[in-house]
């Protein structure tokens, strides 16, 4: 199936399109926790606490049970999405909501996602299993991808158009 919003990472992008990186949802979630703590303790202290808190580890028995059920945890039963140690490591990464707002402001248009073959296959399978029409709007599809690739940054393909000014 030829889908207009799928761009292969192994081939060059068509002219007029560019790629923008959006922070992984997991980093966004961690950073918003950290920002909340910044207000109380100050930026440096909040980061020091996050680093010290380290990994979010499940109890051994619980981790074993989840692994037996086929789930993949980190080392020593870590639940990486909740581990504070990496929060704030990528302060320059843009969150999804600020990215979407910037696109609107700067006349940018989300045209699709740049994905590796394995990412593409996994994501299309997810869409199919959840009965999503893969020919939907690229922005809506990218919004679903943000959830699916929760722990990975998104490579969003965008096109900027020149703003139109009203003539007086």
């Amino acid at each position, binding site marked *: 199936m030829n889908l207009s919003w799928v761009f292969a990472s192994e081939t060059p992008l068509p002219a007029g399109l560019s790629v923008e990186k959006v922070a992984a949802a997991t980093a966004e979630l961690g950073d918003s926790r950290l920002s*909340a703590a910044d207000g109380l303790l100050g930026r440096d202290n909040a980061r020091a*606490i996050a680093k010290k808190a380290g990994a979010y580890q499940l109890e051994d028995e619980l981790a074993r049970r989840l692994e037996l059920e086929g*789930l993949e945890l980190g080392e020593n039963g870590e639940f990486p999405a909740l581990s504070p140690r990496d929060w704030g490591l990528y302060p320059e990464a843009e969150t999804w909501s600020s990215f979407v707002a910037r696109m609107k402001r700067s006349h940018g248009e989300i045209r699709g996602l740049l994905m590796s073959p394995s990412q593409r296959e996994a994501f299309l399978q*997810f869409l199919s299993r959840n009965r999503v029409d893969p020919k939907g709007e690229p922005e809506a599809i990218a*919004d*679903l991808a943000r959830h699916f690739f929760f*722990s990975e940054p998104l490579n969003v393909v965008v096109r900027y158009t020149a703003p139109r000014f009203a003539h007086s």
Partner: protein
Amino acid sequence: MEPLHLQLRSEVESLYEARPYPPVGYLSPFFQRIRWEERPTLNYRAAYSAAYGSTTGIIASSKPRILVAGCGTFEPVVVALANPGAEILAVDLSERSLRRLEWQLRIRGLQGRVKTWAGDFEELPDYFGAFDFVIATGVIHHLSDPERGLRSLVSRTKEAGVFRLMVYSYWGRSLLYSAKELAGKLGIKDPAAFRRMIESLPAGHPYKIYFYLYDDARNDTGLADGFLHPCDRPFTAYGLRDLLSAAGLQATKFLHAPAGQPEAADRLARLPVDLGSWDRLSLLEWFGELEKNFTFFACRDGWRIRPKVTEYEWNQALPRSGNLRSELAGRELRFDTRRDPATYSPGELRELADALFLLPSGGK
């Protein structure tokens, strides 16, 4: 068109009519697990002591009137067992949930102890009178206007009334809300489709791990209650503090595990000494130490510092004098209700309070 809050109430009512929660069955009532460990946290005297001092529990009302708001199918059973001698009113929007509750009460011989009323607790008729203890577990965050709901509960309590509340934590359940957001974008409205969504995620996906960690997700009723609820407004620690303050309440004791108690935040770092309990709870919430919910006792704001302790007003469940077994002291304690409680030492009172708290049936 119905106002939004009535629409929401109607959706919540429909959810629990279709899926009474928790899912206790008519056919296997004897196997329903009773969470015995919750009994102390549902005990009136424990809540009273938390508000007015650890020793005053021994002079709290011996026949408290308890309101269980949004009670569901089972909680009043545990409340009745945790409060021998209490008069209990169980209120829920769902009549079907109340019928299941009545069955659970009947098979345990508790039906005379608990009255039920179907409807919105904010519209509870005045003839039910005022209560000593209000329990609202997992209810406030499901209201269209939590502040109005909480105020209405406060208005139904006596002046020295106490509360036991459980409210969802925004940060503690953040992954649940993200998964719920995805389900919303996929147009998912039923448990089977939600399960299919979870199964279609990669094996290490955070939503999938959280889902498997969420005990209630094992059955469709729990899944619908947790992940597909039509009205779910979690609170941050600060948000909860403000809500309580607006309703004229203050938290008196958090019923969390030791790692979720405010003072546990000091393990994270050397914190400024002027940080209050809510600041400390916020830190635990942000850094993942607080799981899912805030559970706590509360009383009216300002009452904690001036408890109405009447001299000689001992718990009426006690005989005039006798012995009580104190696990705390590891021995029998002699008491005499003609004696002014103020003449006991703080240590003796604490041991007596402890012994009375564990009385199996009203002090006989």
